[in-house]
């Protein structure tokens, strides 16, 4: 290692030798960097899970364009949308199909008394509404009264229950003095807003939620005619529909808007963002403490090197060398622990936490920047190394 660094740096790797010399300090520093890494990884994981969870239902829609209420930021908030907008949309050239989608939350009480929150989506069972093959295959069943399909990814529900359903044994859910029969399953996955998704017909939906009406869906799913470019069609829809109560968006645009809203306007997103900042601050402070102590302990030696004729850049190089070594050596265990924790969270909480190459690269660069920043602050102490005080 020393020989390799000597070759890389073109000088003795004093930073590395210093770190290696004081093992306790090195271990403390690495533990600090690892902890900061883990903290940031988890926050980024939750943030990524939030973003991923937001996009999953959108991505499951068999639609090119969504018509929402103008004040809607997410799938469910905003005012109800006049159903007439669907008919108006169907009159626009280039629109192949338009179908209403109703969404509401429902609490599902488990046999053990715990509650699972489901996003219930009501759709017209005569129309293709989803890109999820299992839903499309079971769509005729939705036409049955009180029939439902449920997300196998629903959090904290025994998988045996879904196996039973898929084996042809319906499962009955009682809710709000109503019952639904779950006849099949599919997989979309829950996010932070709900534990899972349930799909029912629009008629079943309206029975479940008496305060909702057929004339006020949440969203109108629009499919473009084959060969129809999406952007011009969006422009035509926007021109035709009153902007006062409707917003026309591509699916991607709706996902981005929802993600942006939930990460910047909702507490959960803001908390995760703060978590990343706090993690970085923890890392900066720990590494600064280590590097500053190291500088303080070697003040006379640094002053001697100054007397010999070493320039300030040399000392900065030593501190940054230490910072980068701490970053690299702290990054590896931090990443390994994060991968293990992601898997644990995914298994226990069902949150879609995924370790990606881009996230690891981001963390590596972020850790190097974090440690280098600490080093830059620590180098201010070097100015106190006065060679004239050595005599």
């Amino acid at each position: 290692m020393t020989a390799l660094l000597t070759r890389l740096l073109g000088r003795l790797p004093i930073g590395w030798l210093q770190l290696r010399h004081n093992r306790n300090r090195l271990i403390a520093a690495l533990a600090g960097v690892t902890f900061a890494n883990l903290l940031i990884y988890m926050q980024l994981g939750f943030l990524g899970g939030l973003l991923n969870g937001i996009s999953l239902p959108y991505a499951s829609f068999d639609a090119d364009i969504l018509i929402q209420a103008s004040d809607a930021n997410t799938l469910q908030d905003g005012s109800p949308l006049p159903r007439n907008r669907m008919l108006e949309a169907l009159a626009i050239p280039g629109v192949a199909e338009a179908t209403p989608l109703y969404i509401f939350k429902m609490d599902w009480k488990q046999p053990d008394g715990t509650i699972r929150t489901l996003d219930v989506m009501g759709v017209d069972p005569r129309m293709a509404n989803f890109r999820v093959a299992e839903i499309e295959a079971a769509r005729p069943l939705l036409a049955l009264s009180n029939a439902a399909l449920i997300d196998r990814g629903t959090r904290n529900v025994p998988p045996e229950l879904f196996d039973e359903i898929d084996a042809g044994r319906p499962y009955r859910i009682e809710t709000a003095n109503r019952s639904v029969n779950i006849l099949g399953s599919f997989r979309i996955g829950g996010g932070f807003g709900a534990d899972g998704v349930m799909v029912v017909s629009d008629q079943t939906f309206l029975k479940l939620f008496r305060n909702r009406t057929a004339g006020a869906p949440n969203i109108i799913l629009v499919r473009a005619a084959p060969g129809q470019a999406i952007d011009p069609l969006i422009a035509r829809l926007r021109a035709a529909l009153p902007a006062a109560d409707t917003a026309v968006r591509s699916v991607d645009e709706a996902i981005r808007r929802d993600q942006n809203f939930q990460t910047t306007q909702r507490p959960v997103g803001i908390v995760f963002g703060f978590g990343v900042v706090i993690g970085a601050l923890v890392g900066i402070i720990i590494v600064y403490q280590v590097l500053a102590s190291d500088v303080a302990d070697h003040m006379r030696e640094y002053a001697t090197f100054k007397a010999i004729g070493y320039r300030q850049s040399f000392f900065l190089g030593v501190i940054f060398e230490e910072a980068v070594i701490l970053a690299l050596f702290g990054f590896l265990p931090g990443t390994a622990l994060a991968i293990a924790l992601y898997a644990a969270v995914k298994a226990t909480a069902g949150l879609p936490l995924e370790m990606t190459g881009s996230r690891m690269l981001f963390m590596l660069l972020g850790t190097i920047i974090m440690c280098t920043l600490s080093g830059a602050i620590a180098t201010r102490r070097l100015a106190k190394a006065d060679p004239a005080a050595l005599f």
Partner: protein
Amino acid sequence: MHPAISIAGLNHAFGEGEARRQVLFDINLAIPRGQFVILVGASGSGKTTLLTLLGCLRALQQGRVGLLGQELLGADEETRIACRRRLGFIFQAHNLHDSLTAMQNVRMGLDVHGIRPGADAAAEHALRLLGLGERLHYLPANLSGGQKQRVAVARALVGNPDIIFADEPTAALDWESAQQLLDIIRLLATERRTTTLMVTHDSRIMALADRILTMEDGRLVRDEAVPRA
């Protein structure tokens, strides 16, 4: 050829306003190359300040100092660094880097000029000259006080400096080691015309010098040549 050190009308003070305290008064001196000069004086007489000024460790305030032909009055930091690279410093404290071996500490005296082939061999040679051939890869923590001081001496001399500034370099050395150091200094003076300015109170060394300077209250009060037997 320029003298190693030439000083004219050197004054220096610390502090400002009412707190200003002058520590050097009108120093005038010339030391030719190859001389071994000892500087003596009571504590507070200005020896240390003079060494720091001549060693380019402080900026000059008033007077002229020529160091190997380079005028130091008004010299910027870069010029002073360049000058320092031609000097060798031996401090009272060894100031060895605790995480570097004896060899690595000595190499720091060479690497300031950039890594060069043969640096390890030169560092090893310097340590062997000072009787540390068996301690090349020892960390300072595993060396005695005298051995540490000899490593510091090797670090100062390994780069073949033109001038050596030494502050009580033999204080931590036994007489045999001190003699080894003095032999090297005299050898460098003879072979490379290296100049040495040493602050010491070791009476055994006085007779070995070419010249003894005495300072009192910031003034150079005596400049005596040491008679050769």
